[in-house]
Protein backbone atom coordinates (compact mmCIF):
# COMPACT_ATOMS: atom_id res chain seq x y z
CA UNK A 1 0.00 0.00 0.00
CA UNK A 2 1.33 3.43 -0.87
CA UNK A 3 -0.73 5.34 1.58
CA UNK A 4 1.10 7.38 4.17
CA UNK A 5 -2.00 8.88 5.66
CA UNK A 6 -2.75 6.70 8.58
CA UNK A 7 -4.74 7.33 11.64
CA UNK A 8 -2.89 6.08 14.69
CA UNK A 9 -5.91 6.53 16.90
CA UNK A 10 -7.43 3.24 17.91
CA UNK A 11 -11.13 3.02 18.60
CA UNK A 12 -10.22 2.41 22.25
CA UNK A 13 -10.82 5.67 24.03
CA UNK A 14 -8.76 7.31 26.73
CA UNK A 15 -11.23 9.29 28.81
CA UNK A 16 -8.66 11.02 31.00
CA UNK A 17 -6.68 12.40 28.08
CA UNK A 18 -9.85 13.50 26.31
CA UNK A 19 -11.26 15.06 29.45
CA UNK A 20 -8.03 16.92 30.17
CA UNK A 21 -7.99 18.29 26.62
CA UNK A 22 -11.60 19.42 26.96
CA UNK A 23 -10.81 21.05 30.30
CA UNK A 24 -7.81 22.89 28.94
CA UNK A 25 -9.98 24.18 26.12
CA UNK A 26 -12.29 25.83 28.64
CA UNK A 27 -9.39 27.25 30.64
CA UNK A 28 -7.62 28.54 27.53
CA UNK A 29 -10.79 30.42 26.56
CA UNK A 30 -10.93 32.00 29.99
CA UNK A 31 -7.35 33.13 29.64
CA UNK A 32 -8.26 35.07 26.51
CA UNK A 33 -11.20 36.72 28.16
CA UNK A 34 -9.82 39.09 30.79
CA UNK A 35 -12.89 41.29 30.46
CA UNK A 36 -15.13 38.35 31.25
CA UNK A 37 -12.95 37.43 34.22
CA UNK A 38 -13.00 41.01 35.46
CA UNK A 39 -16.77 40.98 35.21
CA UNK A 40 -17.01 37.73 37.12
CA UNK A 41 -14.70 39.17 39.76
CA UNK A 42 -16.65 42.39 39.92
CA UNK A 43 -19.94 40.60 40.45
CA UNK A 44 -19.31 39.50 44.04
CA UNK A 45 -18.07 42.96 44.95
CA UNK A 46 -21.20 44.51 43.48
CA UNK A 47 -23.45 42.00 45.22
CA UNK A 48 -21.86 42.68 48.57
CA UNK A 49 -22.13 46.41 48.06
CA UNK A 50 -25.65 46.49 46.72
CA UNK A 51 -27.23 43.95 49.00
CA UNK A 52 -24.99 44.28 52.02
CA UNK A 53 -25.11 48.02 52.35
CA UNK A 54 -28.15 49.26 50.45
CA UNK A 55 -30.69 46.55 51.26
CA UNK A 56 -28.91 45.64 54.45
CA UNK A 57 -29.76 48.97 55.94
CA UNK A 58 -33.45 48.11 55.69
CA UNK A 59 -33.43 44.38 56.35
CA UNK A 60 -33.42 43.05 59.87
CA UNK A 61 -31.84 39.69 60.58
CA UNK A 62 -33.43 37.36 63.11
CA UNK A 63 -31.67 37.59 66.42
CA UNK A 64 -29.06 40.25 66.73
CA UNK A 65 -26.94 39.11 63.79
CA UNK A 66 -25.25 41.32 61.27
CA UNK A 67 -27.04 41.33 57.89
CA UNK A 68 -23.84 41.12 55.90
CA UNK A 69 -22.73 38.10 57.84
CA UNK A 70 -26.12 36.59 57.06
CA UNK A 71 -25.88 37.55 53.39
CA UNK A 72 -22.37 36.46 52.40
CA UNK A 73 -23.03 32.70 52.68
CA UNK A 74 -26.06 33.20 50.45
CA UNK A 75 -23.94 35.03 47.90
CA UNK A 76 -21.53 32.07 47.88
CA UNK A 77 -24.43 29.87 46.88
CA UNK A 78 -25.67 32.37 44.30
CA UNK A 79 -22.26 32.25 42.69
CA UNK A 80 -22.08 28.47 42.93
CA UNK A 81 -25.51 28.13 41.35
CA UNK A 82 -24.59 30.36 38.43
CA UNK A 83 -25.12 27.84 35.66
CA UNK A 84 -25.44 30.49 32.96
CA UNK A 85 -21.85 30.50 31.63
CA UNK A 86 -21.86 26.72 31.27
CA UNK A 87 -25.23 26.87 29.52
CA UNK A 88 -24.19 29.59 27.09
CA UNK A 89 -20.86 27.96 26.30
CA UNK A 90 -22.49 24.63 25.54
CA UNK A 91 -25.26 26.23 23.49
CA UNK A 92 -22.65 28.03 21.44
CA UNK A 93 -20.56 24.91 20.90
CA UNK A 94 -23.47 22.84 19.75
CA UNK A 95 -24.92 25.62 17.60
CA UNK A 96 -21.63 26.17 15.79
CA UNK A 97 -20.71 22.61 15.05
CA UNK A 98 -17.88 22.29 17.57
CA UNK A 99 -19.80 19.54 19.30
CA UNK A 100 -20.34 17.89 15.90
CA UNK A 101 -16.63 17.87 15.25
CA UNK A 102 -15.91 16.31 18.64
CA UNK A 103 -18.63 13.76 18.08
CA UNK A 104 -17.14 12.74 14.75
CA UNK A 105 -13.82 12.04 16.46
CA UNK A 106 -12.81 8.83 18.20
CA UNK A 107 -12.92 10.39 21.65
CA UNK A 108 -14.76 9.46 24.78
CA UNK A 109 -18.07 11.24 24.51
CA UNK A 110 -18.54 11.19 28.23
CA UNK A 111 -15.11 12.60 28.98
CA UNK A 112 -15.61 15.85 27.08
CA UNK A 113 -18.54 17.15 29.13
CA UNK A 114 -16.79 15.90 32.28
CA UNK A 115 -13.65 17.82 31.40
CA UNK A 116 -15.70 20.92 30.69
CA UNK A 117 -17.57 20.61 33.97
CA UNK A 118 -14.36 20.09 35.91
CA UNK A 119 -12.72 23.15 34.36
CA UNK A 120 -15.81 25.23 35.04
CA UNK A 121 -15.83 24.08 38.66
CA UNK A 122 -12.16 24.98 38.99
CA UNK A 123 -12.90 28.47 37.77
CA UNK A 124 -15.89 28.62 40.10
CA UNK A 125 -13.63 27.71 43.01
CA UNK A 126 -11.54 30.76 42.22
CA UNK A 127 -14.67 32.92 42.21
CA UNK A 128 -15.76 31.49 45.56
CA UNK A 129 -12.40 32.22 47.15
CA UNK A 130 -12.55 35.76 45.86
CA UNK A 131 -16.04 36.14 47.22
CA UNK A 132 -14.77 34.89 50.57
CA UNK A 133 -12.09 37.59 50.54
CA UNK A 134 -14.73 40.24 49.78
CA UNK A 135 -16.88 38.81 52.56
CA UNK A 136 -14.07 39.02 55.09
CA UNK A 137 -13.57 42.66 54.16
CA UNK A 138 -17.17 43.57 54.93
CA UNK A 139 -17.39 41.74 58.22
CA UNK A 140 -18.27 38.16 57.38
CA UNK A 141 -16.41 35.74 59.67
CA UNK A 142 -15.88 32.02 60.09
CA UNK A 143 -16.91 31.53 63.70
CA UNK A 144 -16.39 27.79 63.88
CA UNK A 145 -13.10 26.35 62.71
CA UNK A 146 -11.09 25.32 59.72
CA UNK A 147 -12.75 21.90 59.51
CA UNK A 148 -16.36 23.04 59.18
CA UNK A 149 -15.27 25.90 56.90
CA UNK A 150 -13.58 23.46 54.55
CA UNK A 151 -16.71 21.38 54.74
CA UNK A 152 -18.73 24.40 53.62
CA UNK A 153 -16.32 25.00 50.74
CA UNK A 154 -16.59 21.36 49.73
CA UNK A 155 -20.38 21.59 49.72
CA UNK A 156 -20.25 24.72 47.60
CA UNK A 157 -17.86 23.21 45.06
CA UNK A 158 -19.94 20.05 44.79
CA UNK A 159 -23.12 22.10 44.38
CA UNK A 160 -21.45 24.21 41.74
CA UNK A 161 -20.33 21.10 39.87
CA UNK A 162 -23.93 19.87 39.88
CA UNK A 163 -25.24 23.24 38.70
CA UNK A 164 -22.73 23.18 35.83
CA UNK A 165 -24.24 19.92 34.59
CA UNK A 166 -27.71 21.49 34.62
CA UNK A 167 -26.30 24.39 32.61
CA UNK A 168 -24.57 22.14 30.08
CA UNK A 169 -27.70 20.07 29.64
CA UNK A 170 -29.83 23.15 29.01
CA UNK A 171 -27.22 24.44 26.56
CA UNK A 172 -27.30 21.15 24.65
CA UNK A 173 -31.07 21.27 24.46
CA UNK A 174 -31.19 24.91 23.37
CA UNK A 175 -28.31 24.75 20.89
CA UNK A 176 -28.47 28.46 20.22
CA UNK A 177 -26.31 31.02 21.92
CA UNK A 178 -28.79 33.90 21.78
CA UNK A 179 -31.70 31.81 23.01
CA UNK A 180 -29.53 30.62 25.88
CA UNK A 181 -28.69 34.21 26.72
CA UNK A 182 -32.38 35.03 26.87
CA UNK A 183 -33.15 32.04 29.02
CA UNK A 184 -30.57 33.18 31.56
CA UNK A 185 -33.03 35.87 32.65
CA UNK A 186 -35.30 33.09 33.83
CA UNK A 187 -32.51 31.35 35.72
CA UNK A 188 -31.79 34.30 37.98
CA UNK A 189 -35.07 34.28 39.94
CA UNK A 190 -34.48 30.63 40.87
CA UNK A 191 -31.60 31.82 43.03
CA UNK A 192 -33.67 34.68 44.44
CA UNK A 193 -36.53 32.39 45.42
CA UNK A 194 -34.69 31.26 48.52
CA UNK A 195 -33.39 32.30 51.90
CA UNK A 196 -30.32 33.97 50.35
CA UNK A 197 -31.42 37.58 50.80
CA UNK A 198 -34.17 37.39 53.37
CA UNK A 199 -35.42 34.69 55.72
CA UNK A 200 -38.28 32.76 54.15
CA UNK A 201 -40.49 33.15 57.22
CA UNK A 202 -42.07 36.36 55.97
CA UNK A 203 -43.07 34.98 52.57
CA UNK A 204 -46.64 33.91 51.68
CA UNK A 205 -47.13 30.25 52.55
CA UNK A 206 -47.02 28.85 49.02
CA UNK A 207 -43.90 30.84 48.16
CA UNK A 208 -42.29 29.91 51.44
CA UNK A 209 -42.75 26.22 50.71
CA UNK A 210 -41.03 26.61 47.36
CA UNK A 211 -38.23 28.67 48.85
CA UNK A 212 -37.73 26.28 51.77
CA UNK A 213 -37.38 23.35 49.41
CA UNK A 214 -35.17 25.21 46.95
CA UNK A 215 -31.74 23.52 46.97
CA UNK A 216 -30.20 26.98 47.04
CA UNK A 217 -31.82 27.52 50.45
CA UNK A 218 -30.54 24.23 51.81
CA UNK A 219 -26.96 24.93 50.76
CA UNK A 220 -27.18 28.49 52.07
CA UNK A 221 -28.44 27.27 55.43
CA UNK A 222 -25.69 24.65 55.50
CA UNK A 223 -22.96 27.19 54.85
CA UNK A 224 -24.36 29.49 57.51
CA UNK A 225 -24.43 26.65 59.97
CA UNK A 226 -20.95 25.39 59.12
CA UNK A 227 -19.43 28.86 59.38
CA UNK A 228 -21.35 29.81 62.49
CA UNK A 229 -23.14 32.73 60.83
CA UNK A 230 -26.65 33.95 61.70
CA UNK A 231 -29.28 31.54 60.44
CA UNK A 232 -32.88 32.06 59.42
CA UNK A 233 -35.89 30.38 61.05
CA UNK A 234 -36.50 26.96 59.55
CA UNK A 235 -40.31 27.09 59.61
CA UNK A 236 -40.10 23.42 60.44
CA UNK A 237 -39.05 22.61 56.86
CA UNK A 238 -36.97 19.43 56.82
CA UNK A 239 -34.23 20.68 54.42
CA UNK A 240 -33.62 23.72 56.61
CA UNK A 241 -33.60 21.70 59.81
CA UNK A 242 -30.95 19.36 58.39
CA UNK A 243 -29.22 21.67 55.92
CA UNK A 244 -25.93 19.78 55.50
CA UNK A 245 -27.59 16.46 54.82
CA UNK A 246 -30.20 18.14 52.62
CA UNK A 247 -27.47 19.87 50.62
CA UNK A 248 -25.62 16.61 50.08
CA UNK A 249 -28.82 14.89 49.03
CA UNK A 250 -29.78 17.70 46.67
CA UNK A 251 -26.33 17.70 45.10
CA UNK A 252 -26.38 13.94 44.69
CA UNK A 253 -29.86 14.07 43.21
CA UNK A 254 -29.00 16.80 40.72
CA UNK A 255 -25.87 14.93 39.64
CA UNK A 256 -27.76 11.66 39.39
CA UNK A 257 -30.31 13.27 37.11
CA UNK A 258 -28.27 15.66 35.01
CA UNK A 259 -25.00 13.80 34.46
CA UNK A 260 -26.71 10.90 32.65
CA UNK A 261 -29.11 13.25 30.83
CA UNK A 262 -26.30 15.47 29.69
CA UNK A 263 -23.86 12.76 28.65
CA UNK A 264 -26.58 10.86 26.83
CA UNK A 265 -27.63 13.98 25.02
CA UNK A 266 -24.03 14.77 24.18
CA UNK A 267 -23.32 11.33 22.82
CA UNK A 268 -26.59 10.76 21.01
CA UNK A 269 -26.59 10.98 17.22
CA UNK A 270 -28.77 13.96 16.42
CA UNK A 271 -30.68 15.20 13.45
Amino acid at each position, binding site marked *: *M*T*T*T*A*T*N*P*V*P*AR*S*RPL*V*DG*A*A*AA*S*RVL*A*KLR*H*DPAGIALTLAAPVMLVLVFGYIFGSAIAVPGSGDYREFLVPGLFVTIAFNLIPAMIAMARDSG*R*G*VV*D*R*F*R*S*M*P*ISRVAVPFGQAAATALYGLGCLLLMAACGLLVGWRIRTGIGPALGALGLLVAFQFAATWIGMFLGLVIRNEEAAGQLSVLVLPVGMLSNVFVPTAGMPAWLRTIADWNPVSAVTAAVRELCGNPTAPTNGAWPLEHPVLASLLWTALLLAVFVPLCTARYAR*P*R*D
Partner: protein
Amino acid sequence: MTVAVVAEGLVRAYGPVRALDGLDLVVPRGSVCAVLGPNGAGKTTAIRVLATLTVPDAGRATVLGHDVVRDAALVRGSIGLAGQHAAVDDDLTGRENLEILGRMHHLGRREARRRAGELLDRFDLADAGDRLVKTWSGGMRRRLDLIASVVVAPPVLFLDEPTTGLDPRSRTEIWTTVRELVGAGTTVLLTTQYLEEADRLADDIVIIDGGKAVATGSPDVLKNSIGVRVDVLVETSGELAAAAAALAAYTGGDPEVDAAGLRISAPVVGTAVSVPGVVRTLDAAGVAVLDAGIRRPTLDEVFLHLVRPRHEEAAA
Protein backbone atom coordinates in the same frame (compact mmCIF):
# COMPACT_ATOMS: atom_id res chain seq x y z
CA MET B 1 -10.85 -1.52 -6.76
CA THR B 2 -11.16 -1.27 -3.03
CA VAL B 3 -13.89 1.01 -1.84
CA ALA B 4 -13.64 3.52 0.96
CA VAL B 5 -17.23 4.65 1.29
CA VAL B 6 -20.42 2.87 0.29
CA ALA B 7 -23.98 4.03 0.77
CA GLU B 8 -26.93 1.86 -0.20
CA GLY B 9 -30.47 3.14 -0.26
CA LEU B 10 -29.96 5.67 2.52
CA VAL B 11 -33.18 7.24 3.76
CA ARG B 12 -33.44 10.00 6.34
CA ALA B 13 -36.68 11.90 6.85
CA TYR B 14 -37.26 15.01 8.91
CA GLY B 15 -40.98 15.00 9.43
CA PRO B 16 -42.51 15.14 5.96
CA VAL B 17 -39.19 16.09 4.30
CA ARG B 18 -37.24 13.18 2.93
CA ALA B 19 -33.77 14.69 3.10
CA LEU B 20 -32.33 11.40 1.84
CA ASP B 21 -34.59 9.23 -0.26
CA GLY B 22 -32.64 6.14 -1.26
CA LEU B 23 -29.16 7.53 -1.82
CA ASP B 24 -26.58 5.23 -3.38
CA LEU B 25 -22.94 6.14 -3.47
CA VAL B 26 -19.57 4.42 -3.93
CA VAL B 27 -16.24 6.12 -3.39
CA PRO B 28 -13.14 4.14 -4.38
CA ARG B 29 -10.19 4.35 -2.05
CA GLY B 30 -7.76 7.17 -2.81
CA SER B 31 -10.18 9.07 -5.02
CA VAL B 32 -12.07 12.33 -4.77
CA CYS B 33 -15.84 12.15 -5.04
CA ALA B 34 -17.81 15.36 -5.43
CA VAL B 35 -21.45 15.40 -4.43
CA LEU B 36 -23.32 18.08 -6.35
CA GLY B 37 -26.85 19.18 -5.82
CA PRO B 38 -29.10 22.20 -5.47
CA ASN B 39 -29.90 23.66 -2.03
CA GLY B 40 -31.83 21.19 0.04
CA ALA B 41 -30.81 18.21 -2.10
CA GLY B 42 -29.57 16.34 0.95
CA LYS B 43 -25.81 16.85 0.67
CA THR B 44 -25.26 17.84 4.29
CA THR B 45 -27.56 15.10 5.52
CA ALA B 46 -25.58 12.54 3.51
CA ILE B 47 -22.31 13.74 5.05
CA ARG B 48 -23.81 13.69 8.53
CA VAL B 49 -24.97 10.12 8.13
CA LEU B 50 -21.57 9.02 6.82
CA ALA B 51 -19.80 10.87 9.66
CA THR B 52 -21.99 9.07 12.27
CA LEU B 53 -23.70 12.29 13.36
CA THR B 54 -27.12 11.19 12.17
CA VAL B 55 -28.66 7.75 12.03
CA PRO B 56 -30.43 6.83 8.78
CA ASP B 57 -34.02 5.62 8.88
CA ALA B 58 -33.28 2.97 6.27
CA GLY B 59 -30.45 1.75 4.10
CA ARG B 60 -26.87 1.22 5.16
CA ALA B 61 -23.49 2.79 4.74
CA THR B 62 -19.95 1.74 5.44
CA VAL B 63 -16.67 3.59 5.72
CA LEU B 64 -13.63 1.38 5.18
CA GLY B 65 -15.91 -1.55 5.73
CA HIS B 66 -17.24 -0.34 9.09
CA ASP B 67 -20.96 0.18 9.37
CA VAL B 68 -21.75 3.80 10.26
CA VAL B 69 -24.42 2.79 12.75
CA ARG B 70 -23.19 -0.45 14.30
CA ASP B 71 -19.45 0.29 14.23
CA ALA B 72 -19.72 4.05 14.66
CA ALA B 73 -16.68 4.16 16.96
CA LEU B 74 -14.51 2.46 14.32
CA VAL B 75 -15.81 4.80 11.65
CA ARG B 76 -14.92 7.80 13.80
CA GLY B 77 -11.40 6.44 14.07
CA SER B 78 -11.00 6.63 10.30
CA ILE B 79 -12.61 9.90 9.29
CA GLY B 80 -12.06 13.62 9.38
CA LEU B 81 -14.94 16.07 9.03
CA ALA B 82 -15.16 19.71 8.08
CA GLY B 83 -18.83 20.59 8.27
CA GLN B 84 -20.72 23.20 6.32
CA HIS B 85 -20.29 25.80 9.06
CA ALA B 86 -16.78 26.35 10.33
CA ALA B 87 -16.47 24.52 13.65
CA VAL B 88 -13.42 26.30 14.97
CA ASP B 89 -13.35 28.06 18.32
CA ASP B 90 -13.46 31.82 17.83
CA ASP B 91 -12.30 32.46 21.38
CA LEU B 92 -9.06 30.55 20.96
CA THR B 93 -6.04 31.18 18.79
CA GLY B 94 -5.58 29.11 15.65
CA ARG B 95 -2.69 27.33 17.30
CA GLU B 96 -4.74 26.44 20.38
CA ASN B 97 -7.55 25.14 18.21
CA LEU B 98 -5.18 22.73 16.51
CA GLU B 99 -3.33 21.80 19.70
CA ILE B 100 -6.50 20.85 21.52
CA LEU B 101 -7.65 18.69 18.62
CA GLY B 102 -4.20 17.07 18.55
CA ARG B 103 -4.51 16.25 22.21
CA MET B 104 -7.96 14.81 21.66
CA HIS B 105 -6.34 12.63 19.02
CA HIS B 106 -3.96 11.47 21.76
CA LEU B 107 -0.87 12.93 20.18
CA GLY B 108 0.43 14.08 23.56
CA ARG B 109 1.04 17.68 24.54
CA ARG B 110 4.46 18.12 22.89
CA GLU B 111 3.57 16.37 19.68
CA ALA B 112 0.24 18.22 19.47
CA ARG B 113 2.08 21.52 19.77
CA ARG B 114 4.63 20.51 17.15
CA ARG B 115 1.94 19.35 14.75
CA ALA B 116 -0.07 22.57 15.20
CA GLY B 117 3.01 24.63 14.35
CA GLU B 118 3.77 22.45 11.35
CA LEU B 119 0.25 22.78 9.96
CA LEU B 120 0.14 26.54 10.48
CA ASP B 121 3.46 26.93 8.68
CA ARG B 122 2.49 24.69 5.86
CA PHE B 123 -0.84 26.39 5.21
CA ASP B 124 0.46 29.88 5.46
CA LEU B 125 -1.35 30.72 8.66
CA ALA B 126 1.71 31.02 10.89
CA ASP B 127 1.53 34.81 11.09
CA ALA B 128 -2.03 34.75 12.36
CA GLY B 129 -1.55 31.56 14.37
CA ASP B 130 -1.34 33.24 17.76
CA ARG B 131 -4.23 35.62 17.19
CA LEU B 132 -7.75 34.80 18.32
CA VAL B 133 -9.66 33.19 15.47
CA LYS B 134 -12.45 35.75 15.79
CA THR B 135 -10.03 38.29 14.30
CA TRP B 136 -9.41 36.10 11.24
CA SER B 137 -11.01 36.54 7.84
CA GLY B 138 -13.69 34.13 6.69
CA GLY B 139 -11.32 32.47 4.25
CA MET B 140 -8.64 31.93 6.87
CA ARG B 141 -11.20 30.41 9.21
CA ARG B 142 -12.43 28.06 6.55
CA ARG B 143 -8.88 26.96 5.91
CA LEU B 144 -8.30 26.43 9.62
CA ASP B 145 -11.46 24.37 9.71
CA LEU B 146 -10.13 22.18 6.91
CA ILE B 147 -6.74 21.81 8.60
CA ALA B 148 -8.48 21.02 11.89
CA SER B 149 -9.99 17.96 10.24
CA VAL B 150 -6.55 16.65 9.25
CA VAL B 151 -4.57 17.27 12.44
CA VAL B 152 -4.14 13.53 12.32
CA ALA B 153 -4.45 12.77 8.61
CA PRO B 154 -7.52 10.55 8.35
CA PRO B 155 -7.86 7.83 5.70
CA VAL B 156 -11.25 9.26 4.73
CA LEU B 157 -12.11 12.94 4.76
CA PHE B 158 -15.58 14.49 4.48
CA LEU B 159 -15.77 18.13 3.43
CA ASP B 160 -19.14 19.88 3.28
CA GLU B 161 -18.87 22.82 0.90
CA PRO B 162 -15.22 23.50 1.72
CA THR B 163 -14.91 26.55 -0.52
CA THR B 164 -18.27 28.27 -0.27
CA GLY B 165 -17.77 31.97 0.26
CA LEU B 166 -14.05 31.93 -0.44
CA ASP B 167 -12.22 34.20 -2.84
CA PRO B 168 -10.58 32.55 -5.86
CA ARG B 169 -7.16 32.49 -4.25
CA SER B 170 -8.35 30.80 -1.06
CA ARG B 171 -10.36 28.40 -3.17
CA THR B 172 -7.31 27.43 -5.16
CA GLU B 173 -5.40 26.91 -1.92
CA ILE B 174 -8.06 24.58 -0.60
CA TRP B 175 -7.96 22.65 -3.86
CA THR B 176 -4.20 22.34 -3.57
CA THR B 177 -4.56 21.09 -0.01
CA VAL B 178 -7.13 18.52 -1.02
CA ARG B 179 -4.90 17.30 -3.85
CA GLU B 180 -1.98 16.97 -1.47
CA LEU B 181 -4.03 14.93 0.94
CA VAL B 182 -5.22 12.70 -1.86
CA GLY B 183 -1.63 12.34 -3.01
CA ALA B 184 -0.81 11.07 0.46
CA GLY B 185 -3.53 8.43 0.22
CA THR B 186 -6.58 10.11 1.71
CA THR B 187 -10.00 9.45 0.19
CA VAL B 188 -12.07 12.63 -0.05
CA LEU B 189 -15.81 13.02 -0.31
CA LEU B 190 -16.81 16.63 -0.71
CA THR B 191 -19.98 18.51 -1.49
CA THR B 192 -19.98 21.67 -3.52
CA GLN B 193 -22.18 24.18 -5.27
CA TYR B 194 -19.43 24.96 -7.73
CA LEU B 195 -19.40 22.88 -10.86
CA GLU B 196 -15.92 24.03 -11.69
CA GLU B 197 -14.71 22.70 -8.38
CA ALA B 198 -16.13 19.29 -9.10
CA ASP B 199 -14.71 19.39 -12.61
CA ARG B 200 -11.21 20.27 -11.46
CA LEU B 201 -10.98 18.18 -8.33
CA ALA B 202 -13.15 15.12 -8.59
CA ASP B 203 -12.51 11.71 -10.07
CA ASP B 204 -16.19 10.99 -9.76
CA ILE B 205 -19.23 13.17 -9.48
CA VAL B 206 -22.54 12.24 -7.94
CA ILE B 207 -25.35 14.62 -8.74
CA ILE B 208 -28.09 14.37 -6.17
CA ASP B 209 -31.50 15.90 -6.15
CA GLY B 210 -34.42 15.22 -3.84
CA GLY B 211 -32.26 12.96 -1.69
CA LYS B 212 -31.14 10.51 -4.34
CA ALA B 213 -28.44 10.24 -6.97
CA VAL B 214 -29.68 11.34 -10.39
CA ALA B 215 -26.37 10.86 -12.19
CA THR B 216 -22.99 9.37 -11.38
CA GLY B 217 -19.75 9.29 -13.29
CA SER B 218 -16.50 11.03 -14.06
CA PRO B 219 -16.78 14.61 -15.29
CA ASP B 220 -16.10 13.39 -18.84
CA VAL B 221 -18.67 10.67 -18.71
CA LEU B 222 -21.28 13.09 -17.41
CA LYS B 223 -20.50 15.63 -20.11
CA ASN B 224 -20.72 13.02 -22.82
CA SER B 225 -23.92 11.66 -21.37
CA ILE B 226 -26.04 14.54 -22.57
CA GLY B 227 -24.40 14.86 -25.99
CA VAL B 228 -22.61 17.69 -27.75
CA ARG B 229 -23.94 21.17 -28.43
CA VAL B 230 -23.92 23.48 -31.42
CA ASP B 231 -23.10 27.15 -30.79
CA VAL B 232 -23.55 29.85 -33.41
CA LEU B 233 -23.04 33.58 -33.50
CA VAL B 234 -25.26 35.58 -35.87
CA GLU B 235 -24.85 39.06 -37.25
CA THR B 236 -28.09 40.82 -36.35
CA SER B 237 -30.81 40.23 -33.79
CA GLY B 238 -33.38 40.07 -36.60
CA GLU B 239 -31.86 36.77 -37.64
CA LEU B 240 -32.14 35.11 -34.23
CA ALA B 241 -35.60 33.67 -34.67
CA ALA B 242 -34.93 32.18 -38.08
CA ALA B 243 -31.59 30.81 -36.94
CA ALA B 244 -33.12 29.23 -33.83
CA ALA B 245 -35.82 27.53 -35.87
CA ALA B 246 -33.30 26.20 -38.38
CA LEU B 247 -30.99 24.95 -35.62
CA ALA B 248 -33.86 23.25 -33.81
CA ALA B 249 -34.69 21.32 -36.94
CA TYR B 250 -31.04 20.44 -37.62
CA THR B 251 -30.04 19.35 -34.10
CA GLY B 252 -33.34 18.00 -32.85
CA GLY B 253 -32.72 19.94 -29.61
CA ASP B 254 -34.32 22.95 -28.02
CA PRO B 255 -32.05 25.97 -28.70
CA GLU B 256 -31.22 28.56 -26.04
CA VAL B 257 -31.09 32.08 -27.41
CA ASP B 258 -28.81 34.73 -25.92
CA ALA B 259 -30.36 37.78 -27.60
CA ALA B 260 -27.88 40.31 -26.22
CA GLY B 261 -24.87 38.22 -27.26
CA LEU B 262 -26.47 37.24 -30.59
CA ARG B 263 -25.63 33.66 -29.71
CA ILE B 264 -27.66 30.50 -29.97
CA SER B 265 -26.77 27.23 -28.36
CA ALA B 266 -28.60 24.00 -29.05
CA PRO B 267 -28.10 20.50 -27.65
CA VAL B 268 -27.78 17.79 -30.25
CA VAL B 269 -30.32 15.06 -29.80
CA GLY B 270 -29.83 11.77 -31.55
CA THR B 271 -28.33 12.93 -34.85
CA ALA B 272 -24.90 13.50 -36.32
CA VAL B 273 -23.82 17.10 -36.85
CA SER B 274 -20.87 18.87 -38.43
CA VAL B 275 -19.72 22.46 -38.66
CA PRO B 276 -20.20 22.62 -42.48
CA GLY B 277 -23.65 21.12 -41.92
CA VAL B 278 -24.53 23.92 -39.48
CA VAL B 279 -23.30 26.59 -41.88
CA ARG B 280 -25.21 25.10 -44.83
CA THR B 281 -28.41 24.81 -42.79
CA LEU B 282 -28.29 28.40 -41.61
CA ASP B 283 -27.30 29.61 -45.05
CA ALA B 284 -30.36 27.92 -46.48
CA ALA B 285 -32.46 29.72 -43.85
CA GLY B 286 -31.01 33.02 -45.00
CA VAL B 287 -28.92 33.61 -41.85
CA ALA B 288 -25.41 35.02 -42.01
CA VAL B 289 -23.29 33.05 -39.55
CA LEU B 290 -20.31 34.80 -37.99
CA ASP B 291 -19.13 31.81 -36.03
CA ALA B 292 -20.25 28.23 -35.57
CA GLY B 293 -18.85 25.44 -33.45
CA ILE B 294 -19.57 22.10 -31.92
CA ARG B 295 -18.54 21.49 -28.34
CA ARG B 296 -19.16 19.26 -25.38
CA PRO B 297 -21.53 20.65 -22.77
CA THR B 298 -20.10 22.22 -19.65
CA LEU B 299 -20.77 20.60 -16.31
CA ASP B 300 -23.15 23.47 -15.56
CA GLU B 301 -25.26 22.47 -18.51
CA VAL B 302 -25.21 18.83 -17.45
CA PHE B 303 -26.27 19.88 -13.98
CA LEU B 304 -29.10 22.07 -15.16
CA HIS B 305 -30.21 19.44 -17.63
CA LEU B 306 -30.46 16.84 -14.86
CA VAL B 307 -31.70 18.95 -12.01
CA ARG B 308 -33.91 21.67 -13.38
CA PRO B 309 -36.59 19.60 -15.08
CA ARG B 310 -37.45 17.91 -11.80
CA HIS B 311 -38.02 21.23 -10.11
CA GLU B 312 -40.18 22.46 -12.92
CA GLU B 313 -42.20 19.29 -12.51
CA ALA B 314 -42.53 19.97 -8.83
CA ALA B 315 -43.55 23.56 -9.41
CA ALA B 316 -46.14 22.61 -12.03
